[in-house]
């Protein structure tokens, strides 16, 4: 007798979607989440009160389930270099979608065939056509606002379920700035309500999507956690899974977990779904070394924890000649997408330009830092007021996401010498950028510079290579592929080594393109449900 049909580890967007689909089909599901439930009101207040308003600032950082911090990349992460891995994630009910931007792009067809088309990286074991129906399913399930007349290089068989989010005034000025260049500014598909949908309100432009949407107009994983629970799934928060037991037949038989007080528990099931994001999944698999899995669970390929990728970001900012009125609307509503594929991918990476509506808040901490800097110049009274208005109204920021190739040396492993409050190993990371990605950062700087100049900008600043930013996209550490020699899971996300173990999320991406990954995570999760159910039937 088992405790559940399916145990899902992780209550983020992938785990919640799988759990809700399975529970709705009558499957008995237990979801184990390492972190706590989060109260939205508390998160908003914590954001207001935070001195450094990084993506994690709105949330508790539990000692029993710590998460990395953008403002201290050595907190929790054990970084061995040469570069510091700069992307983070949350461990709480709802997962990292609490502070994601909401951008919900599909990959483009070429992203699935990087090796065969451009001689770089590896191909996916599925092509765009295999995932397209699931993209539609995920867009409908989550709720995406977009312009159905613009496929952005990703052919679609169904329209977006909601009308597009309007471009900001700033977007339209940037579009005019790019006029005459190869780069087209288009509205971004977003998991953000443009109309009332799924009992959630439309966006009212709080302009705080990162770190928290105060009204949940932006989708987050708690939407499907609630649906899963309503359908009968049992959620166990504050349950940190630390070991998977492998049975004699190679199937996973149980997950062991720890509670905040250090006490231990164990759950058994017919199938197990790991949906704990791309750092904690490989850490768990490698922590679960045992006689039946001497190299770690699901790791005969030796690829678990390897091929760690991000979308390293070139951040550039300037003061435009005329006001563009930032700090209004969602944090990003448009971007350049026609830069995501071309024959040049043999030599430099796919990239997309995210246009920020948030002034210089990302690179400098504006507008708070603007106030401090202007006051330090001795400005007072009306002069100070006018200076704040003039400066902030002209702040423009581009963030270009670049593709990073899989490199087995970029790796996360459990650090047995550095442990958290529960005594569990922290993630030890080796990470570097290669020439391919660096070429993308350099190319982005030139594109940014051209647009800034066209907008008669001053105070133009481009972050140097050493100042690359993380996109918040942790990818590749349990990749999917065609065989157990080179990959961890198959195209159905089933571990080659264990027929009842499934791995969700961006950990399975063989390559990352340059699109924000959450829609692809959601589509793959929904696609995997059929295989999970067949496993139960067998």
């Amino acid at each position, binding site marked *: 007798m088992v405790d559940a049909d399916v145990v899902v580890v992780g209550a983020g967007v992938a785990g919640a979607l799988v759990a809700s689909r399975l529970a709705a089909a009558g499957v008995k599901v237990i979801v184990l989440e390492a972190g706590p439930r989060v109260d939205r009101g508390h998160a*908003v207040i914590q*954001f*207001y*009160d*935070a*001195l*450094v308003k*990084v993506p994690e600032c709105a949330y508790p950082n539990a000692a029993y389930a710590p998460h990395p911090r*953008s*403002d201290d990349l050595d907190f929790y992460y054990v970084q061995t270099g040469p570069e510091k891995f700069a992307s983070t994630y949350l461990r709480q009910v709802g997962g990292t979608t609490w502070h994601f931007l909401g951008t919900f792009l599909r990959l483009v067809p070429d992203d699935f065939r990087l090796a065969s088309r451009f001689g770089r990286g590896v191909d996916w074991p599925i092509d765009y056509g295999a995932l397209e129906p699931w993209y539609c399913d995920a867009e409908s399930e989550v709720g995406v606002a977009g312009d159905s007349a613009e496929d952005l290089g990703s052919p679609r068989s169904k329209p977006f379920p909601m009308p597009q989010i*309007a*471009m*900001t*005034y700033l977007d339209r000025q940037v579009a005019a700035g790019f006029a005459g260049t190869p780069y087209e500014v288009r509205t971004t598909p977003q998991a953000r309500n*443009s*109309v009332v949908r799924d009992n959630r309100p*439309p*966006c*009212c*432009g*709080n*302009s*705080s999507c990162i770190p*928290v949407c*105060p*009204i949940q107009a932006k989708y987050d994983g708690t939407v499907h956690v609630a649906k899963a629970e309503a359908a009968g799934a049992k959620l166990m928060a504050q349950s940190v899974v630390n070991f998977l037991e492998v049975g004699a037949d190679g199937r996973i038989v149980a997950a062991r977990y720890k509670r905040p007080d250090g006490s231990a528990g164990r759950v058994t099931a017919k199938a197990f779904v790991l949906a704990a994001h791309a750092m904690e999944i490989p850490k768990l698999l490698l922590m679960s070394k045992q006689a039946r899995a001497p190299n770690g669970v699901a790791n005969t390929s030796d690829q678990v924890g390897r091929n760690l990728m991000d979308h390293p970001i070139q951040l550039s900012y300037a003061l435009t000649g005329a*006001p563009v*009125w930032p*700090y*209004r*609307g*969602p944090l990003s*509503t448009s971007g350049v997408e026609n830069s995501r594929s071309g024959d040049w991918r043999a030599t430099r990476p796919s990239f997309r330009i995210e246009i920020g509506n948030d002034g210089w*808040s990302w*690179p400098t*901490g504006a*507008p*708070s*830092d*603007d*106030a*401090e*800097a*202007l*006051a*330090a*110049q*001795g*400005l*007072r*009274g*009306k*002069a*100070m*007021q*006018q200076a*704040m*208005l003039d400066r*902030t*109204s002209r702040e423009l920021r581009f963030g270009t996401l670049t593709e990073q190739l899989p490199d087995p040396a970029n790796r996360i492993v459990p650090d047995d010498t550095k442990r958290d409050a529960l005594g569990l190993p922290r993630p030890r990371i080796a990470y570097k950028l290669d020439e391919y990605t660096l070429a993308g950062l350099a190319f982005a700087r030139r594109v940014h510079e051209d647009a800034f100049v066209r907008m008669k900008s001053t105070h133009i600043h481009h972050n140097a290579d050493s100042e690359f930013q993380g996109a918040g996209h942790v990818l590749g550490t349990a990749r999917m592929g065609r065989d157990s020699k080179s990959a961890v899971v198959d195209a159905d996300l089933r571990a080659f080594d264990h027929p009842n173990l499934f791995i969700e999320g961006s950990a399975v991406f063989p390559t990352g393109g340059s699109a924000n990954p959450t829609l692809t995570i959601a589509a793959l999760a929904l696609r995997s449900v059929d295989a999970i159910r067949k496993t139960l039937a067998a």
Partner: protein
Amino acid sequence: MTVDRRTLLQALSGVVAGALAPLALAQTSTALTAAQFGKLSAALTGYPEADADAVGKMMRAFATPARRASLATLAQVVATTPPSDLDAALKARKLDVIANDLVAAWYSGVVTNGSKSQVVLYADALMWSAMTYTKPMGVCGGVTGYWADPPS
């Protein structure tokens, strides 16, 4: 991200304010009332006096023992000096840095004491008042799509 610049700025302002304290103490030992602090703040920021709650929060955070005497002198100088002469008067009395720090605190909502900074005001920070075209981040801005047009 922003930490290095912010930390540097805050550290610098803390060092300078700390260095001023002995001089200021020598000038006066008169304690500032909340009403005087409110008036001083209004004169320097160019905005009407904040409500008593905001003034109280700011004063508790900013008017540390090390700053109190300088603040009292600053209030006296600001109250008795014509605006056109104020900059010169503050520099002559070496009160310009603490005045700048007070303006920075009201606009940013952040008070720095030595190496420690804290958010004292968020939505009431005057930067949002100066940014007349918008509202604080994390506060609803209007109907969906209001951002498509330039501010009226």
